[in-house]
């Protein structure tokens, strides 16, 4: 095969290893993604969850259950309200059994809970990522002073305990302010430090690259350069990081519920169910295992998918195992410090 056009100066075919012509970056990433069965499975699980969450009212209607309706007849009041039957009194009516104490239908509550949990976790992640990118870019592109200020703000945010902020916020925001949004804000505003750090580091290393300089020469303003040249390159590390943040946010939502700053009852969320279920795992294991299992599956799926997306976005992982030289050449040109010469 011909690796590089030899003496022929005329237009030549694509270089070796190139994918089919005309494919956009996104399409190529998708193609790489498609080759990973684990990623596809993860995406499938997530899609199913989202679908179920979206269709919660419909499904609840179909199975004929109201997630908030009490069923006092299904729980044993003398024994702390534990459901009568085994496995949370699962039955043809209540597929996954009922909640201890209230006898509310667990299946529909889990469905509705998914809405809140996914919404809060995704929302918080979006906030963290957006604020993190903004802060990271500002720090990296601004002067020393700006960098120091943003760095300080990051430290302040990391050190502020979520509980103090949460309680203070719940006190000032009006009672009818939507709780999920409040949770998104609390978790999001406290958790952007990591993203900011990642973005800052990445931007610093990208800033001096030739293509960024070339873009500056084209006469574009700073912002336009940052948006067009830097942002796309930040996608991979940010996605990786977001895949770590997302499950962490779900767990945080659970912990906040545990501390009483969660969503408003009777709206369920997995986190809230989990914190309520805490003590029930010996008396009524189903009550704990269901939300815990769902949370775990979601975390696993997000992680696997995140890993795969990051890999797919990284051209280095395009399937070529290099013995070395070619990659090395470009790399040194980028990162090698200017030697003093011999």
């Amino acid at each position, binding site marked *: *095969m*011909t*690796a*590089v*056009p*030899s*003496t022929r*100066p*005329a*237009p*030549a075919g694509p*270089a*070796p*290893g*190139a*994918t089919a*012509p*005309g*494919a*956009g*970056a996104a399409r*190529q990433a998708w193609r790489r993604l498609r*080759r990973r069965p684990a990623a596809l499975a993860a995406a499938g699980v997530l899609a199913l969850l989202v679908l179920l969450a979206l269709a919660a009212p419909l499904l609840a209607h179909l199975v004929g259950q109201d997630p908030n309706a009490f069923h006092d007849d299904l729980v044993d009041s003398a024994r702390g309200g534990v459901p009568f039957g085994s496995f949370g009194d699962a039955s043809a009516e209540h597929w996954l059994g009922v909640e201890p104490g209230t006898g509310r239908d667990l299946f529909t509550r889990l469905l509705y809970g998914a809405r809140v949990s996914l919404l809060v976790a995704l929302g918080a992640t979006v906030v963290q990522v957006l604020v993190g990118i903004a802060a990271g870019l500002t720090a990296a592109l601004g002067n020393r002073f700006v960098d120091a200020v943003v760095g300080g703000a990051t430290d302040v945010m990391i050190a502020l305990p979520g509980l103090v902020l949460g309680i203070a916020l719940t006190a000032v925001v009006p009672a009818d302010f939507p709780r999920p949004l409040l949770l998104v804000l609390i978790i999001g505003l406290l958790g952007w430090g990591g993203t900011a750090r990642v973005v800052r580091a990445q931007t610093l290393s990208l800033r001096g*690259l*030739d*293509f960024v*300089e*070339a*873009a*500056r*020469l*084209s*006469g*574009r303003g700073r912002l*336009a350069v940052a948006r*067009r*040249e830097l942002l*796309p*390159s930040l*996608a991979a590390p940010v996605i990786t990081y977001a895949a770590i943040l997302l499950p962490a946010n779900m767990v945080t939502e659970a912990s906040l519920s545990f501390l009483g700053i969660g969503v408003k009852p009777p709206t369920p969320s997995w986190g809230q169910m989990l914190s309520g279920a805490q003590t029930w795992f010996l008396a009524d294991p189903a009550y704990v295992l269901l939300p815990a299992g769902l949370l775990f599956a979601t975390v696993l799926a997000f992680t696997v998918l995140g890993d795969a997306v990051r890999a797919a976005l990284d*051209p280095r992982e*395009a*399937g*070529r*195992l290099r*013995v*070395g*030289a070619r990659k*090395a*050449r*470009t*790399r*040194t*040109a980028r990162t090698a*410090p*200017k*030697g*003093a*010469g*011999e």
Partner: protein
Amino acid sequence: MTTHPVQPLVDVTDLSVEFPVGESGASVRAVDGLSFTLAPGRALGIVGESGSGKSTVAAALLGLHRDTGARLTGTVRVAGTDVTTAGPAELRRLRGGRAAMVFQDPLSSLDPYYAVGDQIAEVHRVHHDVSRRAARARAVEVLDRVGIPDAVRRSRARPHEFSGGMRQRALIAMALACDPDLLIADEPTTALDVTVQAQILDLLHGLREERGLALLLVTHDVGVAAESVDDLLVMKSGSAVERGPVATVLAAPTEAYTRALLAAVPRLEPTDGAGAAAPARAAAEARVPAPTPARPPAPVVEAVDLRREFGRGRRKTTAVDGVSLALAPGETLGIVGESGSGKSTLGRMLVGLLAPTAGEVRHDGTPTTGITAGAQMVFQDPGSSLNPRRSIGESIADPLRAAGERDEGAVRSRVAELLARVGLDPTHYDRYPHEFSGGQRQRVGIARALAPRPRLIVCDEPVSALDVTTQAQVTALLTELQQELGLALVFIAHDLAVVRQVSDRVAVMRQGLVVEDGPVDQVYGAPRHPYTRRLLSAVPSLDPALAAARRTDRSALTTV
């Protein structure tokens, strides 16, 4: 050193290497039925354009393809070991113990976290059952041998504290530490500038003479090979096209491919014969009016006592230290000098990417600060000068859009026009950089520089990362464009031969200062500054006999 003289040290028969690529099943055949032998103590050079499979062969000799998914067929015997079938332990003994490899990139080939001496000692201890202390002593000894001054102290330094040349010496020292019979050097000097390159080549030569090492030198620079080897093997697309004693192959190539390859090599000698770019330069030269003292045209760009410092306090370096120059329309100024002499810094100040600490830059007579539309730049590394995540069309269209062009059709047609102009398929607007070869990417870079119709283009080492044939194409394109558009060009390179081919005038830089400047023929023909003379003598020659003579010259010069 105990091998039987009758048995070749390296015996490669019918070697093929295939790499799996892309989707299921597809593969690239990097080496295709190659056979050769290397006797103990001899030196074999493998030359060929980029991608011809040279590095793959070198790696195959040490079995480095194991577990990478590559498929090897044929036999490879090195120092009595069958590399394709040897067990892991045997292979480890071979690696380093019998045959040692020196890699192309000296910085990334050493572990940044450990002291250089420790790394050499570690490798030494793999092959010799000695104490840590003895291994350290050995490391110091070999470092001293390769000419690292103050080796005891320097052995404790980490790679980043070494300059490029020193690092390459350290890698050679690492190879020596294990007492191998064979040294495999894969482009050992590509990342270095000419003077350092000459030193390394001299070192290799000295070691061979001293220890009777066999050498397998992989390079795309025919000049480097000419200086250092006994036999030459020319590769193309994974197979050998020609082989024989170096003098014969260079002087009387039998294959057309070899002839083309040789023809593409830029020469230092003022021959107007071969060399793809030479005619172009001649034409350009003809256009430039002879120095007319009457009224010189207003210079396109003018540097007035430019200075630039980096860092503060003790770390302060003066990259450019008071440079003044001027460039007329249609003129090409070559800038040469060793690494770190301030060439890029100067170039970046000329286009406004970097603000000078003192002095000023004038475009068409008016002082400017910051970026000006009339000045563009072509970067050294085609890999990193294009955003891998944007299509090339978008990159080229950037200046047009920045200038306020909103009509999509107009943008596209202008980009197509530019692509055609630099010799690319005009329909490739939506392709991404990685779908192009190095030379093609450099063309894209040039097209982007042309887009805002600049009056000045600063080319910072535009061809250093390309192999000779591609190099020739790109230089030819540049001169052609200049001629056609009346551009002023600043051409930065450390390759003196290339500079000679394209430039009208040349400036030699050293430590931020222009030590000599003038018309090319004058500077190359009768260098006044000793530094210029040293630079020129370091350029490898295609004639092995001349190379030997130069080597003697050099040792004389450096002892001065």
